């Protein structure tokens, strides 16, 4: 398998990225880790005429805590976040989710911003961003703008990014005191695409549940701390709103069943962790 021909530009910085995106628009793709993009190039599902490689832009290769968020630059790999010594204290949901993201060898090179940009409905990093109410910072010649995750993800592989914009960084909110987090996923083999994934955050007054792999984008719902019976009903009702489809991997009914099971498990685990956090 060989990609169709394209021009390749190794970008120096964000300004050059914006300049070239303004010039080439939809003909251009940003190449970061390439772990999704080169796959689709190899299969010729995409045939851009220019690849703009941000992976060596040093100013975009960073992970830092700022303003109550963990901010991850466009060139930072998933491994650089995963192997961060303080991650479990900063964004514990990411610590729970990383083992489900493909494999060690792919996380070594794949980027966080790249996964968010690709917006696969079954991908873990977009789901975590949506659950936590994170932000995506988009940069173009017109300037920077910040979108909340719920406005950024618009459908299957579809986002609010304009064709002249670079995802400069994404921001995951740091853990909230007294809140527990959990992540559950089912796939046919470890590291495969999720057939269904659930992320949960449980605090003193509220339950947040996010589901990936079922609807066309990560979908989040929030409830008060419901009693067990009402929670089961709420999860079931929510599962039915996701518009699950039959496909080669699983039936819609099976996906709804997975959502009920995984959501209940994630919420119970998160609630127990919240309990431990306040004790």
């Amino acid at each position: 398998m060989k990609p169709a021909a394209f021009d390749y530009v190794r970008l120096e910085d964000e300004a050059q990225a914006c300049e070239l995106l303004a010039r080439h628009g939809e003909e251009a793709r940003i190449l970061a880790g390439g772990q999704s993009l080169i796959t689709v190039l190899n299969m010729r599902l995409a045939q851009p005429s220019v690849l703009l490689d941000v992976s060596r832009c040093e100013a975009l290769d960073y992970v830092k805590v700022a303003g109550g968020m963990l901010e991850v630059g466009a060139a930072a790999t998933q491994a650089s976040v995963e192997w961060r010594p303080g991650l479990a204290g900063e964004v514990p949901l990411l610590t729970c989710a990383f083992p489900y993201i493909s494999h060690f060898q792919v996380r070594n090179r794949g980027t966080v911003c790249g996964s968010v940009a690709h917006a696969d409905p079954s991908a873990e990093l977009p789901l975590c961003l949506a659950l936590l109410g994170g932000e995506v910072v988009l940069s173009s010649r017109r300037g920077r703008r910040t979108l909340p995750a719920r406005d950024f993800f618009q459908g299957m592989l579809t986002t609010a990014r304009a064709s002249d914009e670079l995802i400069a960084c994404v921001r995951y909110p740091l853990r909230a005191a007294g809140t527990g987090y959990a992540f559950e996923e089912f796939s046919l083999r470890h590291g495969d695409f999720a057939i269904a994934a659930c992320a949960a955050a449980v605090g003193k007054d509220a339950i947040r549940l996010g589901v990936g792999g079922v609807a066309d984008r990560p979908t989040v719902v929030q409830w008060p701390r419901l009693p067990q019976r009402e929670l089961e009903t709420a999860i079931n009702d929510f599962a039915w709103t996701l518009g699950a489809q039959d496909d080669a991997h699983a039936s819609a009914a099976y996906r709804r069943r997975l959502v009920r099971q995984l959501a209940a498990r994630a919420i119970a685990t998160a609630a127990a962790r919240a309990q431990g956090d306040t004790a």
Partner: protein
Amino acid sequence: MSTEKTQRIRCTLNGRRREGTAESRMLLSDFLRHELGATGTHVGCEHGVCGACTVRIDGVASRSCLTLAVQVDGRGVDTVEGLARDGELGDLQQAFRRHHALQCGFCTAGILMSCADFLERVPDPTEQQVRDMLSGHLCRCTGYTPIVQAVLDVAASRNKNT
């Protein structure tokens, strides 16, 4: 449509400076095999699933089929050819032979490169950690058990010697 111009790629392959030419679209896996003649790296699925083409780029285990040759310009690439020193198999390779951790050997080059990176970062892994790392590789011969044993054996003997 873009013009298919080629460019010089300079990299350090297994400690030696090498250079070759590549179109922008040439994958690192093809560059290693066809341009530099380093055919130890095998090519399986070409979409990042099977792990056969795994090499180390600046020390980090990565899929060479999901990397462009132009992206390693100026970087260090290590492949299975670099594991043996002076004609003697490295400790990982010896352990794979001792434990019968390969049969046909197609997947082995990639697995060895993953293990080499992994054991530097996780020198004393649990069996679960080893299996998790190996989940990024498909082996249809061994059933993985002897591979896990070989990796744990290398970790134990390296720890004994330090």
